[in-house]
C-alpha cells in the first residue's frame, strides 16, 4: 500500500502522516483545518507528489455550486447549434461539460482531488456532495448514465473555519487539525526551504517571530508562510542577525515587519506595545 511520509520540502508531523495514510487506506476524504498559512493546500500537492499521482485542484469560491464539480449542461450552445443546423446537436452528450470530480472519477490511474477552502461556498454545499463523495458516483440526468469512479480518488478538503460544516458530512471524513508547529519543527521547515540560511540569523528571526505570536490581541498571528516570506526578504536585504536582536525580553519592531503583520490594526497595536516596552526600559 502506498504511504505518505514527510518529504525534504514538506515537513509533516507524525499525526498528520497517520491521518493521511488512514484516508488513503480507507479511501475516505480527509478534512484538514488549521490556522491560515500552516500548509493545508500545500499538503495536497505534496501527497500527490509523494504518491506519484496527478493532482486535480478544485478551488471553491462563494459562487461555486456542488453541481459545478460534477457536470454542467450547456443548453445555450446546443440551442445555437440547433439554429445553425450543426449535426452535433443530435447528441446531447456533446453539450455536457465535465467538472473536476467527473474528471477525477474517469481517470484510469488514481488521482488526488483537492477541494480547497470548502467553507467559502454556500452553507448547503457540503450536503450536496455527500453521496458523491461517499459512493464516488453520480447520475447524469441528461444522458441517463451513471458515472462511477474507476479508482476511488484520494480527496483532501481544506477549511478555514469560516462556516461550520454539517455533521453528516463530517461523519464521512477523517479530520486533522494542523497545529501551529513548535520551535523545533519550525527550524526543520526553515531548513527545508532555505538550506543555506545562516544559523544565527534563523535563531534570531525565530526569536522575534515567536515573540510576535505571543503578543496578545493580534487579529492575524503570523504563520509559517509569513515566516518564510519574511526570511526570504531578510536574505535579499542581507541583514545581519544583530539587527534582529532584542534587549532582554523587550519588544522590538522587526525590520520588514510588513511581511509578518498583515493588518493595519495589528501593526498599530504592535507599535504601541513596542513603544511602551521601550519606555518601560528607559
Amino acid at each position, binding site marked *: 500500500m502506498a504511504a505518505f511520509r514527510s518529504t525534504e520540502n514538506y515537513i509533516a508531523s507524525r499525526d498528520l502522516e497517520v491521518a493521511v495514510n488512514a484516508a488513503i487506506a480507507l479511501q475516505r476524504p*480527509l478534512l484538514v483545518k488549521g490556522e491560515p498559512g500552516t500548509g493545508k493546500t500545500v499538503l495536497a500537492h505534496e501527497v500527490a507528489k509523494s504518491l506519484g499521482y496527478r493532482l486535480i485542484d478544485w478551488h471553491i469560491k462563494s459562487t461555486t455550486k456542488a453541481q459545478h464539480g460534477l457536470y454542467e449542461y450547456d443548453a445555450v450552445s446546443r440551442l445555437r447549434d440547433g439554429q445553425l443546423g450543426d449535426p452535433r446537436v443530435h447528441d446531447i452528450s456533446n453539450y455536457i461539460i465535465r467538472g473536476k470530480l467527473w474528471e477525477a472519477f474517469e481517470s484510469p490511474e488514481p488521482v488526488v482531488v483537492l477541494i480547497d477552502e470548502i467553507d467559502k461556498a454556500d452553507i448547503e454545499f457540503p450536503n450536496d456532495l455527500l453521496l458523491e463523495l461517499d459512493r464516488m458516483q453520480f447520475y447524469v440526468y441528461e444522458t441517463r448514465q451513471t458515472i462511477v469512479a474507476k479508482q476511488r480518488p484520494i480527496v483532501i478538503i481544506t477549511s478555514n473555519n469560516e462556516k461550520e460544516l454539517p455533521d453528516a458530512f463530517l461523519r464521512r471524513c477523517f479530520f486533522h487539525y494542523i497545529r501551529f508547529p513548535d520551535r523545533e519543527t519550525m527550524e526543520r521547515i526553515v531548513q527545508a526551504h532555505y538550506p543555506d540560511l545562516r544559523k544565527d540569523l534563523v535563531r534570531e528571526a525565530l526569536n522575534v517571530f515567536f515573540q510576535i505570536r505571543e503578543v496578545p490581541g493580534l487579529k492575524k498571528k503570523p504563520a509559517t508562510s509569513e515566516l518564510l516570506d519574511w526570511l526570504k526578504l531578510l536574505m535579499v536585504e542581507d541583514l545581519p542577525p544583530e539587527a534582529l536582536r532584542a534587549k532582554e525580553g523587550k519588544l522590538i519592531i522587526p525590520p520588514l515587519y510588513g511581511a509578518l503583520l498583515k493588518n493595519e490594526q495589528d501593526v498599530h497595536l504592535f507599535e504601541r506595545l513596542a513603544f511602551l516596552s521601550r519606555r518601560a526600559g528607559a
Partner: protein
Amino acid sequence: MFATFILALRQAGLPVSLTEYLTLLGAMKARVAEYDLNDFYYLSRATLVKDERHLDRFDRVFGEVFKGLERPPGEPAGEIPEEWLRLIAEKVLTPEEMAKIEALGGFEKLMETLRQRLAEQKERHQGGSKWIGTGGTSPFGAYGYNPEGVRIGQHESRHRRAVKVWDKREFRDLDDDVEIGTRNMKIALRRLRRFAREGAATELDMPGTIRSTAHNAGTLDLRMVPERRNAVKVLLLLDIGGSMDDHVRISSELFSAARSEFKHLEYYYFHNCPYERLWRSNRRRRDETVPTVEVLRTYGPDYKLIFVGDASMSPYEITQVGGSVEHWNEESGRAWLERLTSHFRRSAWLNPVPQDFWGHTQSIGMVNEIMEGRMFPLTLRGLDDMAHELVR
C-alpha cells in the same frame, strides 16, 4: 473491540457515532497503525474527532481509557465561570519578579488550597496574587505566572510550568454544547430572505429566451436577467460595553452570521441606549461618531432595524434628559428609540438576557414597551420569531 473507549467518549460528550467506530476498526484492519500506541492515538483522533474544539476532551478520555489513568482524586466540584478566565490582559513579569514569587508547598497542598479558594471566592478576579482569575500571580488561574501553578482555562501552557493541566473545565463545554452556533443562526436568519432581481443582467433568462425565440419564428434571441439576490436590507444596532461584556460571544456570533447572510447589512454601536450619536468602530468611538439623524437620513424606511442589547440599565437612562451614564444627552433615550422605530417600518430588539429574567430588570420592561412588545430573546426560537415579525 474498543467499545469501552467509544462509550467513554460519548459520555464525555463527543459526538461519536457507529459509523466512525466502524471506520476506526476498518483502518485498524487495513493496518494503518501497527502495534504502536502513538500511531493508534493519532489514528483514532483523526477518525473520531471532527472538530478542534473536541481535541482536548478526546485527549483526556484517551488517557483515562488506555493508560488506566485515574481522575485526580482531589478535584473540587465547583464550576468555574468562563468570564473569570477570559483573557483580558496578560501580566509580563521580569525574571527578577519571577524569582521573587515563591511557590506554594507541594502538589497536595496546592489542590487543597484550590479547593478552599473555590469555596471562598465569589467574584471574577484578575491580577493580584491570591484569587483565581487571569493574569495574576496566584497559583490558580490562567495567563499568569507562578512556578507551581495550576492552569485553569488556558489552551496551552504559557510558561510551560504548570504542575497539572486542569481538565475538568465546565466552562469549556460552552464552546460546543451551545445550541446556538453560527450555522444555526444563519439558518434562522434565512427566514428573513426575500429574493429579488436587481442590478446588472448577468444570467440567462430561459423562459424569456424561449418565448422571444418563438416570437422571432425560431431565430435565437437571448434574454438576460439580473441575478437573484437576497434583497433584504438590515440595519444592526449593537449595544457594546458595560453589562454587555457577558454577552460578547453570542453577539459576535450573531454578527458574523448576519454579515455573511445579508448583502445589505449596516451596523452601528451604541452604549446601553441609543442617543444622538452612534459609532462604527468601537476603538475610535471617542472621535469618530455619526449623528443618529444622519443614520436616519441615510437608510430608508425599507431597512429592517434590529437592536441587539441587554436593555439592562438605570431607568433614568431611558426616561430622563441628561440620564446617560457617559455624556449629557439633550433628549431622552425614549425619544431617540421612538424616533428610530417610527422611521423604520420594521424593527425588533434582540436580548441576550434569558427571557425568564426579563421581569427582574425594570428597564427591560420599559424598552419592550417602547418596542411595542417586539423584544425577542437571542435564542434560535427568538431569532425565528423575530424573522417572522420582520417579514410580516
